[in-house]
């Protein structure tokens, strides 16, 4: 029976980062994983989707090659080799999960392969091993939410209905795909398959896609999705799966569809089953409840990542992993969720950090809002991709940056500047004064900052 300072259950980006950090800080550490290390993120989430999206982008550029002065006499010679695309994805995933295994070993973290069963807060069983631990970090992640719809089980069995995991491993690119749920995951898959030639329809229950993002970005992004050929249906509810038919209610009227595939992407639920029996508090949606230091109601038991339901994002899971470990090791550490960025990998991308205009107003801030469009940016025109803009929300008295929201091809990389600026309580004055190189997309941030103070130059 081995004894550890820290034991982590689940080797996703929350768990494996926590384990490495704990080991780096000198704790004797174990991690338990029932599937492949890397969790949803590396195996079925962030990484595989971005790998396929890159392939889709290249395909899109090839189909539009004339725009860039490249002739392809006969586009019929161009074909998607789906099995090679999936192979590339698998290779990237393997390389990264291999990297995680290597890092765990290198940092002397003991990896137990198998289902981790919590016996009590200091005792975990994995297969035939019993582990004793001083501290426990629950990082068991989340699973797709499966709605209760008539016929859904049969439809999933047959393969008509799949989750995000399933759609990453289908044998053929569907001709017609229905995506139920237009959140981030739904929009990314819509972008992917639309670019690969699938006829994509998004069913949205409410009357808007992409719930939480700034309204201006949401509206523009929705327009772009539609312009690019994605069909968006609001107030649409699936009522029944019947054979190859999907029976829906669209704003009250019954309609039938017969797609090749249906992707369910209506959210995720925490993998917290059974924890309440151990006395760990869950909220009514099943998320593990923690305090600011990410400790549960049971001393020495922490919960990080999707399982606590705070912000279901990989980088938040990792940051939480570090915070939990720092607290275990005796440093008081908390995370500011308001400043955590979130991204959407569409064509173009969205990068968003800090408060939206709407939330800033709700919170009672006196704000300045400044935007600047990519259509007035030289690099965007040079790249032939000028859809998008930046929106800066700043507090009026000092110009402190409260939020930055970017819709642009490199938005997910560009948002780092926003996060760092907010980390330093930066103002629009510093953003305007920092010389942004020319020609870059990042100049839009400087221009919008000028606009928040006074006037931008280039509009």
């Amino acid at each position, binding site marked *: 029976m081995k004894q550890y300072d820290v034991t982590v259950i689940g080797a996703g980006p929350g768990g494996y980062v926590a384990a490495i950090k704990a080991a780096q800080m000198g704790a004797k550490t174990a991690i338990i994983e029932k599937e492949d290390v890397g969790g949803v993120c590396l195996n079925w989430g962030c990484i595989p989707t971005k790998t396929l999206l890159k392939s889709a982008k290249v395909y899109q550029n090839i189909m539009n090659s004339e725009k860039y002065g490249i002739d392809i006499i006969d586009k019929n010679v161009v074909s998607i080799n789906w099995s090679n695309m999936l192979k590339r994805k698998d290779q990237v995933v393997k390389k990264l999960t291999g990297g995680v295994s290597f890092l765990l070993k290198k940092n002397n973290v003991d990896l137990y392969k198998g289902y981790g069963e919590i016996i009590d807060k200091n005792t975990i069983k994995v297969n035939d091993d019993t582990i004793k631990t001083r501290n426990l970090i629950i990082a068991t992640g989340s699973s797709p939410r499966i709605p209760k719809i008539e016929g859904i089980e049969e439809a999933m069995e047959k393969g008509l209905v799949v989750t995000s995991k399933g759609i990453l491993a289908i044998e053929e690119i569907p001709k017609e795909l229905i995506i139920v749920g237009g959140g981030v995951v739904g929009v990314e898959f819509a972008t992917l398959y639309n670019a690969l030639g699938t006829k994509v329809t998004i069913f949205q229950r409410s009357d808007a896609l992409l719930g939480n993002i700034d309204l201006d970005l949401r509206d523009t992004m929705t327009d772009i999705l539609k312009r690019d050929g994605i069909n968006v249906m609001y107030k649409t509810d699936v009522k029944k799966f019947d054979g190859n038919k999907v029976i829906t209610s669209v704003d009250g009227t019954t309609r039938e569809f017969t797609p090749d595939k249906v992707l369910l992407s209506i959210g995720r639920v925490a993998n917290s089953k059974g924890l309440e029996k151990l006395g760990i508090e869950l909220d009514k949606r099943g998320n593990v409840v923690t305090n600011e230091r990410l400790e549960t109601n049971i001393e020495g038991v922490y919960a990080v990542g999707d399982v606590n339901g705070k912000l279901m994002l990989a980088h938040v899971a990792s940051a939480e992993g570090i915070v939990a470990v720092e607290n275990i090791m005796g440093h008081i550490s908390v995370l500011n969720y308001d400043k955590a960025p979130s991204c959407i990998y569409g064509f173009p991308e969205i990068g968003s950090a800090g408060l939206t205009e709407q939330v800033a107003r709700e*919170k*009672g*801030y*006196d704000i300045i809002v400044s935007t600047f469009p990519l259509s007035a940016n030289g690099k965007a025109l040079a790249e032939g991709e000028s859809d998008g803009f930046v929106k800066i929300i700043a*507090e009026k*008295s*000092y*110009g*402190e940056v409260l939020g930055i929201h970017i819709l642009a091809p490199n938005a997910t990389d560009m948002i780092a500047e926003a996060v760092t600026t907010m980390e*330093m*309580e930066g*103002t629009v*004055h*510093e953003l305007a*004064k920092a010389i942004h190189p020319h020609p870059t997309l990042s100049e839009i941030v400087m221009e919008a900052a000028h606009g928040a103070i006074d006037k931008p130059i280039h509009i």
Partner: protein
Amino acid sequence: HEMKGKNDINKKKVLATPVARKLAKDLGIDITTVEGTGAVGRVMKEDIYKAKEALDTRANNKDVEAQEGEMKAKD
């Protein structure tokens, strides 16, 4: 309740660079007394160095004054 939050937001606070904050702590300077020369009055590291210099000169002057006082007393 909401209004209190709003007042907190608008309350004057010290804008300072990360380096200036650390430097102030190490040199024993009360950062709230330093006038910042950066954007919108942000306290920069240079401002802390200057504040320290001013403090040291003042302390020196006081020493000198004290010495002078002592000498006068002797006279």
